[in-house]
């Protein structure tokens, strides 16, 4: 289904006919009056900030009357959201934007999205969530389709109390942004890094590989790429080093480069910003004409599940992006 900007009339129609307060997730409705709401009224940016809604009906009325280009709610809960004062806690969020993925096998240029990029972003979201559960012990994990990617929202009480630095450390952990001191441990961060680095290396084309290693080493890396991926997954560092032309320096450059690119799979500043506003689930992403929505089963989700009625009726079904 085509992804294209919605017209002002379509946005109005969406909020008048399709948007329903019942589509707001519990984590928003239960904390509605404690969140700051922000709006981009005309597509020029979210400059209408510092709004508070005490009831769902107030929010409903605002959306129906103003039909904003974009609607946002803070990840933070405040005593006084109108002034962003009295910070209480904040959802822990990981933003995986398909348009900004550092490696895209589909060939889409950075800044653009297709269904394949979105599928890739979905896989990244599933993998991140797995680490959040398996290693870090989080339980209340919600996936939100944002229109061009996914938000992972962690709502465990202890996650919401985390501050800037702890969140920063979680980004490094979940994305595999640091080369571990030991690559051979079967579980823990060693495994997280190996899996993320191996997956990334498998996806990297010649051009991307050139970014991380020098020319001579690059040829050998390319030659043994599949073997390196396998050895890396199994933590067999000595076997990597036994490959012809792969020395300790090359391996170090490769691992450092992979760690750096790994960190780009999520927008770290979204996670560490405990006062950020984030697209409101149930609202319309007018840039691509998709509903921002909570996903119950991420495995089976496709962006076609989030197509607004106006686009369906416009008959865009065959106009593949």
């Amino acid at each position, binding site marked *: 289904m085509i992804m294209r900007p919605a017209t002002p009339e379509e946005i109005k129609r969406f909020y008048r006919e399709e948007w329903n307060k019942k589509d707001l997730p519990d984590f928003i409705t239960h904390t509605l009056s404690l969140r700051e709401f922000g709006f981009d009224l005309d597509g020029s*940016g979210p*400059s209408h900030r510092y709004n508070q809604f005490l009831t769902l009906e107030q929010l409903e009325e605002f959306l129906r009357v103003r039909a904003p280009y974009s609607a946002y709610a803070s990840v933070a809960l405040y005593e006084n959201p109108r002034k962003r004062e009295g910070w209480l806690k904040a959802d822990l969020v990981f933003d995986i934007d398909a348009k900004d993925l550092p490696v895209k096998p589909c060939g889409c240029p950075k800044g653009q999205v297709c269904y394949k990029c979105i599928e890739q972003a979905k896989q990244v979201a599933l993998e991140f969530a797995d680490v959040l559960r*398996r*290693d*870090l*012990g*989080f339980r209340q994990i919600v996936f939100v389709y944002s229109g061009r990617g996914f938000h992972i929202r962690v709502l465990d009480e*202890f996650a919401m109390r*985390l*501050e800037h*630095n*702890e969140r*920063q*450390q*979680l*980004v*490094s*952990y979940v*994305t595999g*942004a*640091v080369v*571990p*001191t*030991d690559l*051979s*441990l*079967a*579980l*823990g*961060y*060693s495994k997280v*890094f190996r899996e993320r680095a191996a997956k990334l290396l498998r996806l990297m084309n010649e051009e991307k590989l050139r970014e991380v290693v020098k020319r001579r080493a690059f040829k050998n890396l390319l030659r043994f790429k599949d073997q390196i991926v396998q050895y890396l997954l199994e933590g067999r560092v000595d076997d990597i080093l036994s490959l012809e032309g792969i020395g300790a320096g090359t391996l170090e450059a490769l691992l450092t480069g992979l760690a*750096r690119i790994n*960190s*780009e799979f999520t*927008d*770290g*500043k979204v996670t*560490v910003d405990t006062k950020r506003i984030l697209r409101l689930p149930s609202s319309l992403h007018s840039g691509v004409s998709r509903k921002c929505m909570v996903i119950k089963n991420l495995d089976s989700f496709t962006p076609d599940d989030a197509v607004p009625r106006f686009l369906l009726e416009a008959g865009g079904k065959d106009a593949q992006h």
Partner: protein
Amino acid sequence: MGGLVLLPEYAAVLNPFSEEGRKIASNAPPFEQMPEETIKTAIERIKWSGREAIVEPTAQSIEREIHSFYLMCQSLAAVCHPYSAETQYARESVKKVLKYRLYDLFRKGEGEFCLKTIGRALNLLPLEEFIKQRKELPESDYYRLRDLRMKKDGVEEVDPHLLQQFLPKWAVKWTDVGIVFKHNRANLTDFYLIDGWMILTLRDLWDLYAELIGDQTEEYIQTVYERMTDRGKPERLVKIGEQIARQIPKTVERLPGVRGVAGKLNPEYFPPCIHNVLRGVGSGLRNFAIVMLLTPFLSYARIAPSGKRGDKISDFIQNISVITEEIVPIIMKAAERCNPPLFSDQPQEKANIFYHMGFGMTIAPRLQDAGRSKWYMVPNCAKIQAVAPPLCQPDELCKKIKNPLTYYFRKKAEALRRRSQ
């Protein structure tokens, strides 16, 4: 078994913030009646490095220990700001003392008592219990964790008795020691985590627990400092605090690899990320780029506080014009080049600039205000890369350094060397 008879109150010696510790502290006499011996201990304890840290298991010794600890913290809060070198020194001293005591008590067969005390500050599960309740630990990882800890301590062989300290034996919830990560004293990626629990050797546990109490001490000093800022500083505490501060070496912590020379800013030596910020950035990056990166970078680069961090700007400059005439105009220009210009829709961020240089939330900084907030350090390259990837376009020199400030000083030093040749 243990040769000592430890009173339950002895737990306060290992955790001054425990229930016992707070109870003893709340029964402290007023300053005027504080025994001279306690005051002397409060002044001297910051320099403890060995046996003098051991507390006899008597009610009187425990009381002196706790009263002197709190007196030291409160006195430091009366003379130093929470991010000062003195506070950092106190934190390190608390950690050192605590590790020494733990080691000593284990040696004397009082391990159970220590573990019980630690277990009251955080969820502590014996590894076998963790395995029963949650998940099996691969055998290869068990021995690998032992080897890694031995390697960390530079130990190749140990006798069977000591070996116990290097074996993974405990599981601790990582969120129970969240304060350690909040202060960036340890990296989450350095721990072996399963289902939210860190698997630790006894030595790891000592380190982590000492770090935890050290960070709690720092936060306690900060709380007292804020209270005193509102209500005034008792003169007696100020005098004791000055005596403590005099014992602390002037240079406490060096930023690795940075040996700066103060002087006019030279953009020629700025790293690529700073050039990117100076060109102006888009709306999602503005605050980080201008407030968190450019502001600390320019202030540290211009003032070059001998590699020390955490000190006040006023310790290094005599005239506020260095800030207002040399640093701020560059920041303002970069902010103006942002899209949209940073200060036009977020005027409050102007005060944030001075806040990050340690002057508190103000738009008219004065030298005497330095220390009202923390003088923020330049974030490391890894952080810039994670938080603002578009800013990070590394060149050859970037690959050899870990902080943009090191880049600046290295380039500057190279240029000076070339010139002198």
